[in-house]
């Protein structure tokens, strides 16, 4: 049971941290929204960095799949998790382990991803931790929702596509415009 006991020790430490934040802050609502932003390196990451103004004032923790990245918002160093894809089943466990650690340390209120597979996994982990979730499908998916996007629809509080034709075909899929 040792492996089950440790999370709660961490929880206590985290809660104590928050209590300290509150004491030095302006009451219970002073704590900024904690947002975990997950995107694979490459296009998904660029799409996410173009959106960061929507998270101004939030406490942002970025997660990606490559080293040497500068966080586009805030000062928390980017957490690197293993990349994975649907045809590389062996790497999925590594990605989940990395994400689990990120959730344990950061404990986000909201998880946002622009893809791909690690971001989809992050939204499922978010459900287990009780965080809200937003999925923004890549602009590359102009004809249909990506596989990752389809998989996260049951657990995403908001699923966004960047193509009105795709939004028209799926109920509950939102079109907010394009990130370009």
């Amino acid at each position: 049971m040792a492996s089950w006991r440790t999370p709660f020790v961490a929880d206590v430490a985290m809660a104590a941290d928050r209590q300290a934040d509150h004491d030095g802050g302006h009451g219970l609502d002073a704590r900024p929204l904690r947002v975990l932003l997950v995107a694979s390196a490459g296009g998904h990451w660029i799409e996410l960095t173009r959106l960061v103004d929507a998270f101004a004032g939030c406490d942002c923790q970025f997660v990606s799949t490559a080293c040497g990245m500068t966080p586009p918002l805030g000062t928390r160093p980017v957490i690197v998790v293993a990349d994975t894809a649907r045809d590389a089943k062996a790497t999925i466990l590594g990605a989940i382990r990395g994400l689990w650690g990120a959730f344990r340390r950061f404990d986000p209120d909201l998880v946002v991803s622009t893809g791909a597979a690690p971001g989809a996994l992050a939204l499922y982990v978010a459900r287990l931790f009780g965080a809200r979730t937003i999925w923004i499908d890549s602009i590359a998916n102009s004809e249909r929702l990506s596989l990752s996007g389809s998989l996260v629809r049951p657990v995403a509080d908001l699923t966004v596509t960047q193509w009105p034709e795709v939004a028209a075909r799926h109920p509950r899929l939102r079109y907010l415009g394009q990130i370009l």
Partner: protein
Amino acid sequence: MILLSVGTQLPFDRLVGAVDRWAEARGRDDVVAQIGPTTYRPRALQAFAHADHDRFRELQAECALMVSHAGTGSIIAAMELGKPIIIMPRDHRRGEHRNGHQLATLREFGTRQGVYPAEDEATLVDLLDRADSLQGCPCLTPRAPADFVAHLAAHVRAPSPPTLVRRIRNLWQGSTISGQVGPWN
């Protein structure tokens, strides 16, 4: 300097090979190439498998022309930096990707200013031969349009009751902070 890139996930030897043969035939030694996980050994390219993200962005800013697979990352970067870019889509029927979304990307982006689509190797070589005449288009700021950001920000800030899991966790944390212990301690 010409910068070739194929993304980090999959090899794309059809593109790398074509550019390599072109560089060798024309005696070009200024082609830098990110070639991904491949066994292909280029003869004329300054090649590496991967680069750190920020270092790669510097290369993109330095180069005169980008050549890449039809990945949105490279295309958006080219549009942000005002570089001309030649894109060749991965063909899933040849096993170069999991699905055909790069062909769709070519259709959506191939008509934009500064983006030069190469559906096959012959078109690619033709475009490379007139590299000096290709014009970039600095038509993108590094941030998404304000209305998209505003819509998204509204969802981010929307007041929402704590989820069930969160309420249970809050209860649990409250009890541990006040000194009580769980049943399994």
